[in-house]
């Protein structure tokens, strides 16, 4: 806490640094079928780092989009420097001095750092770009951040951390008075985070207001002055960080106890091992992984970003090359060289990014459900429409997919229902082991509960369920055992009932590891 206190002391020396700069009052934003923001408020002051906390889908990004003009509020008001404002585009808000650094960086890899910083605002001599001045100006901003990046470097040659610095330099060049950072540390190493925090401290001293979105609550203590918590699109509270604990924040974010968030488990683990992986190594971030899965249990895979959970699942599924190791289903060795082999053996992988890897959005519910097992509805080489429709309707009924018809295009369904369609696809294939990669990411809170119930139901039917998740409450609330990953290796395996959030975090961050 000493860094924060130090910063407070410095700040006290500067006059009127605490004046409010950006305010959102009673903001309401509706999407079809979802109330995304419900009477939200936020006030940002000059020279403060203001954390915005909330679960996935709580409305943080939506709020930031409203503030930066990417979305227009249905009700409520945004005031900037005491004036009501309505930005029509991101460019308008940037011109006014509000800059957002997105989690996925918005840089053009094949251009230089200077070209990126001044993209679409290039200094010109006559009709031509004044390259010298552009690079000199860019270098001034880079030097202000005390980073060792040359303005003439190509962006693609920089690490993610350095690219982030370029984004910040770009924000500075826009004379940003409000800087919004979305999960800035998620891809950074410890020392890079230190460097980023130094820069944030500097910016704060210069009077910049910083809205800071992060899931890593532990690191907030090093930089944050105040916290606003939002939950399910609604405002919970705003408090000085020194007055609250991390537990208070978590409680406010979740808003209910674990028991209410998760259904009561029906399925009970047995001793019968249905699936086993021994010393598996993959080409990507998967080293010597061993675990087993018992009938009736839900096994969790957890770890920090880049810990190798997804890579392990993809190696098992044959989506990424596998180097060595054995995979056994019901005691029998299976060879998996490609997804086709895995699917034949009865293994399914439900990818992290449904829209990118899991669904064909342009195709119908029916076509998606039968995609992995179209042969089952083929008679004499042709698709049997009646059989296919029957199969699709059966899935829709069993999984409770809310859709006007099986011929509805999947793009038009809600996130939760899209997820159910993917599950339907693999159940129709009669898969025996299902890997769910972040199954509840980006879906409504209510729909999450339905997905949890479904996972439990599948486990109860004897299907092997592996749930990959970075949400620790989900691990604690839903799994029977949890495999913790750190840098591509298994650092620990625990009975969920005999562990806790802190222990899992220690293993996930590599502070401790089990000898296996």
């Amino acid at each position, binding site marked *: 806490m000493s860094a924060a206190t130090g910063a407070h002391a410095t700040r006290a020396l500067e006059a009127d640094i605490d004046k409010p700069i950006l305010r959102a009052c009673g903001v309401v934003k509706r999407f079809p*079928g979802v109330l995304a923001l419900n009477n939200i408020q936020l006030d940002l002051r000059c020279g403060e780092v203001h954390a915005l906390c909330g679960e996935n889908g709580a409305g943080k990004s939506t709020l930031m989009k409203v503030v930066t003009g990417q979305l227009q509020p249905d009700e409520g008001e945004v005031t900037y420097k005491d004036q009501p404002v309505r930005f029509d585009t991101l460019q308008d808000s940037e011109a006014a001095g509000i800059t957002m650094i997105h989690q996925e960086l918005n840089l053009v890899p094949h251009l230089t750092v200077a070209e990126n910083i001044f993209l679409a605002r290039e200094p010109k001599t006559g009709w031509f770009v004044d390259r010298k001045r552009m690079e000199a100006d860019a270098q001034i901003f880079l030097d202000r951040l005390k980073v060792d990046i040359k303005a003439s470097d190509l962006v693609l040659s920089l690490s993610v951390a350095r690219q982030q610095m370029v984004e910040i330099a770009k924000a500075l060049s826009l004379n940003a008075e409000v800087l919004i950072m979305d999960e800035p540390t998620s891809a950074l190493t410890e020392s890079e985070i230190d460097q980023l925090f130094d820069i944030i401290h500097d910016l704060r001293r210069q009077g910049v207001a910083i809205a800071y979105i992060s899931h890593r609550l532990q690191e907030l203590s090093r930089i944050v002055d105040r916290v606003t918590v939002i939950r399910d699109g609604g405002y919970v509270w705003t408090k000085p960080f020194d007055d609250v604990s991390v537990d208070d924040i978590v409680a406010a974010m979740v808003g209910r106890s674990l028991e209410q968030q998760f259904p009561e488990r029906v399925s009970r683990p047995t001793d019968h091992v249905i699936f086993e992986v021994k010393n598996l190594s993959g080409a990507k971030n998967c080293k010597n992984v061993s675990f087993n899965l018992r009938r009736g249990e839900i096994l969790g895979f957890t770890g920090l970003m880049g810990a190798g959970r997804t890579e392990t699942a993809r190696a098992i599924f044959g989506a990424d090359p596998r180097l060595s190791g054995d995979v056994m289903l019901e005691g029998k060795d299976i060879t998996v060289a490609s997804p086709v082999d895995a699917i034949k053996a009865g293994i399914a992988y439900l990818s992290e990014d449904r829209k990118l890897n899991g669904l*064909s959005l*342009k*195709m119908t519910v029916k*076509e998606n459900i039968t995609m*992995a097992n179209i042969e089952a509805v083929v008679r004499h080489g*042709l698709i049997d429409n009646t059989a296919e429709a029957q199969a699709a309707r059966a899935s829709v009924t069993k999984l409770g997919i809310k859709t006007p018809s099986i011929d509805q295009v999947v793009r038009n369904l809600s996130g939760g*229902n899209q997820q159910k369609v993917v599950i339907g696809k693999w159940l129709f294939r009669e898969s025996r082991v299902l890997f769910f990669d972040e199954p509840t990411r980006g879906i409504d809170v*209510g729909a999450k509960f339905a997905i949890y119930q479904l996972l439990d139901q599948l486990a109860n039917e004897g299907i092997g369920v592996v749930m990959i998740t970075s949400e620790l409450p989900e691990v604690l609330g839903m799994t029977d055992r949890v495999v913790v990953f750190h840098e591509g290796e298994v650092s620990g395996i625990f009975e969920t009932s005999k562990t806790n959030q802190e222990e899992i975090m220690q293993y996930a961050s590599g502070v401790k590891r089990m000898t296996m």
Partner: protein
Amino acid sequence: MAGLDSVTPHAKPSIDRKAIMQKFAALAGLVLLMIAFSLTSDAFLTVSNMVTIALQTSTIALIGIGATMTIITAGIDLSLGSVLALAGVMAAMAAQFGVPVPLALLIGVATGGVCGMFNGLVITRLRLPPFIATLGMMMIARGVALQITGARPVSGLPSEFGTLGNESLWRVVTETASGFPKIVFPGLPYPVILMAVLAVIMAIVLRKTPFGRHLYSIGSNEEAARLSGVKISKVKVGAYVLSGLMAGVAGIVLMSRLVTGQPNEGVAYELDAIAAAVIGGTSLAGGVGTISGTIIGAFIIGILRNGLNMNGVSSFTQMIIIGLVIIGTVWIDQLRNRR
């Protein structure tokens, strides 16, 4: 708990309905064109002119079907026109060499298939973008056709070589009092029958077979298809082989009509084929498209050419008009699809 979930946005019409609307719009355009031309020219809406239009359109329609197959997978086949020429020339040379005509024609079609296979393998094995792979094939096939013929037409072919392109089914001819033959019904030209039969077969392949479904799923989301166990490489090679075969069929039909092997035939035909597919609602982004749409698209182009000819519009002006039609239809389509 599923309260929020149950409120699915119903407002947006489904793509299916959009596809129907698209087809309907294209069909309505076709009908409007026919009405307009029949008002401006008496000779337009006659049986013999309709048969002529169908005959003229059959080539674009045949390679249009091929183009549809690859575009649905989010690919493209730029080699259609050149492969058409090579296939036709191969068939003509085989016939000239003394190979029985039916076999010579098959050799031509097979040549198209081989070119398509080459395209497919370059795309899947060497992992080159379809645009580049088929651009290469466009030049290779044209070069081979010119090389093996010495850039001269292959002539002196047996008369049966012209049967496929020039004769018709159910042609009714009577003799007038003065002794001249009078055509009562011009009959259905074989190329038109071939086009219709292949269109129906390909429509069934697309709509009713797992292979067809896989083409759509690859075009819609290749990674999702791969993770669902679709054998991406095989299916893609299949699409390009089919495309090549269609170019081969178009090639033998065209050369048969000319009763010579013309190595310079079919230049830029692939662009007509792509235009037909696009006017018919096939999306260049992949995942969307139908054979019926492409046939309608081909006929829109064919009728425009025929009708404008009859009205004495120069071929340069025709190009301008067809260009505007392509831009116009796709723009209307985009407007409809925009949220």
